[in-house]
């Protein structure tokens, strides 16, 4: 009687498992990077930002424009263009987000339902402007550095491993800002109770604009880091939006730790399940797994249990 016969799948070849784990970790890093911004905006402002994916796409598209012009004009090494993109793109996206918050969301007084509608509108606007000026093609962005790590079974992109490192670094920085700095304190105060924060003289509207801009900026930073392992395309905002929502809600509202754990949970489960079953079947199971967690633990992994 061999126990392994009773498993509902056959054990994967070690190379497959290794690839699944590696890709799972990278996906976890990608998810964390994309969801980080949403987690802050959603956690602090309790506002569902459906345009989050488009800010991500804008970051990637701007990264292409910047690296393309830099290599075109100055023609420096790839990392120069990339470094500039990593700084400039998020700033532009953050500024744009602050403007949208000021022009639209503030007027709606951040009413949850109205913000969903407004951000769907903003989604289409950003997407279609990208189509107009960037065009419909998918264009690659050169990674700042490209080296191949030779593992026992196969080679793996060094840059991807650095993306994992960058994700951890970024999460740490954001956590430090929130936990250790004055601005972080103000943000947490506004998150805890908006009225009392206002009573203490915190300019809540300015904080919201800042948080919304920070959220979009973080999405853009994530995009600039990730675009070299994917491409910049005007429709690329769709999936990151869905995945970030799943990560944020699965992790539990307003809990940075929850976002991190949920990103790891989804990344690894997607990676490992894909080694056990046929690809599409694996995607179905991974999707249902996430849904079931939310069904049987509504407040998410780390959210406060609803009183």
């Amino acid at each position, binding site marked *: 009687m061999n126990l392994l016969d009773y498993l509902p799948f056959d054990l994967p070849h070690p190379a497959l498992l290794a690839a699944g784990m590696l890709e799972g970790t990278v996906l976890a890093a990608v998810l964390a990077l994309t969801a980080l911004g949403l987690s802050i905006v959603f956690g602090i402002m309790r506002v*569902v930002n459906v345009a989050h994916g488009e800010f991500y796409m804008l970051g990637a598209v701007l990264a292409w424009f910047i690296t393309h012009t830099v290599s075109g004009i100055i023609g420096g090494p790839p990392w120069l263009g990339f470094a500039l993109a990593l700084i400039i793109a998020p700033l532009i996206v953050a500024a744009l987000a602050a403007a949208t918050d000021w022009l*639209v969301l503030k*007027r*709606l007084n951040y*009413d949850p339902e*109205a913000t*969903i*509608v*407004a951000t*769907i*509108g*903003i*989604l*289409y*606007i950003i*997407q*279609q*402007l990208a*189509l*107009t*000026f*960037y*065009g*419909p093609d998918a264009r690659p962005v050169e990674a700042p550095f490209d080296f191949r790590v030779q593992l026992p079974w196969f080679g793996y992109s060094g840059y991807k491993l650095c993306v994992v490192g960058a994700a951890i670094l970024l999460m740490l920085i954001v956590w430090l800002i929130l936990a250790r700095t004055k601005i972080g304190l103000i943000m947490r105060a506004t998150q805890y109770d908006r009225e009392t924060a206002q009573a203490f003289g915190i300019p809540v509207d300015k904080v919201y604009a800042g948080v919304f801009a920070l959220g979009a900026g973080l999405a853009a930073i994530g995009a600039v880091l990730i675009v070299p392992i994917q491409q910049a395309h005007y429709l690329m905002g*769709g999936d990151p939006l*869905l995945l970030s*929502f*799943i990560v944020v*809600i*699965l992790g539990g*509202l307003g809990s940075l730790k929850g976002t991190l754990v949920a990103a790891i949970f989804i990344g690894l489960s997607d990676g490992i399940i894909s080694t056990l079953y046929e690809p*599409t*079947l694996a*995607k*179905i199971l991974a*999707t*249902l797994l*996430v*849904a*079931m967690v*939310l*069904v*049987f633990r*509504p*407040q*998410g992994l780390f959210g406060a249990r*609803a009183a």
Partner: protein
Amino acid sequence: MIRSVLLHGFVIAALIALEPLLSEYHHGNLARIMVLAVYATGYNILFGYTGLLSLGHAMFFAAGMYGCALMIRLAEWSVGPAFIVGVICALIAGIIVGFLALRTIGVGFMIVTLMFAEASYLTILYYNEYTRGDEGFTIAQSVRTIAGLDLSDTTTRYFSALTLFSICLIASAAVVQSKAGRVLVAIRENEDRVRMLGFDPFRYKLFALILSAVMAGSAGAAYAVLFGYAGASFAAVQYSIFPLLWVLLGGPGTTLGPLLGTVLMFYLVDYASGTIMPGLAAMVETQFGIEAPGLASAYLLLVGVALVLLVLFAPKGLLGTLRARMIPWLP
């Protein structure tokens, strides 16, 4: 109460009277709009009246579509019984998803319905040899007849779509103005209070979700039969967002909002992509000399702008604002 019966009667009568006057182009459009308005009406019962925002209604639409189309394609059933099978599939899907998704709180419902819809989309792809996956399959014109009436004939199709729409409109108006409807609206406003007034919110939400799924399913089955095509694209996320847009434009929580929203959005997209945007692009080229080929195809830009303006100045949607400002008795 009588006013609302008259109003709905008037709308249906107008649609009947309109039929002979319509050019063939608008004939075909209105037939499709009415089928999609059934989908939006179903969606509105859950979103507009009960306050539950689902991002996965395409799975019910697709359940109806495939339930019906596969019975015709694989079991060679005739249109009538196949349509009923389609509606039953949507009913079953509604019950299963209802029991699972309604355990969630707040935004969790949005994500869980999204996940179930994504899983059903992939399942349609997975069973490709039956469903032909994303490519989909056609239903032969010869088979698409019901009680001797050829459904591909323009007038028959118009009136079949109108019949289905009228049934769903009256059903939705009846439900939302009934006692149950009053509870659904109360759940939307303050679910905790409803529980403390002696109602079990779960049962009412489940009823709303199942009714909404059945209507969405009947629209899916009707689309397959009236337009002769079933494909996995109708189970994709885009087709879960469409009814949300139509209801938001028309007026969530109003019985006629879905129809109005579907009509307006259809013609907005149709004219924008056909005339407005290409004209704009040509004008930009002639006036400023900038080559902007992308602009000609960016008609969704208008949809985006429309939504932002809508939420800033008419948050309750067109009919919702009309009700708040002028006609308070509008159902």
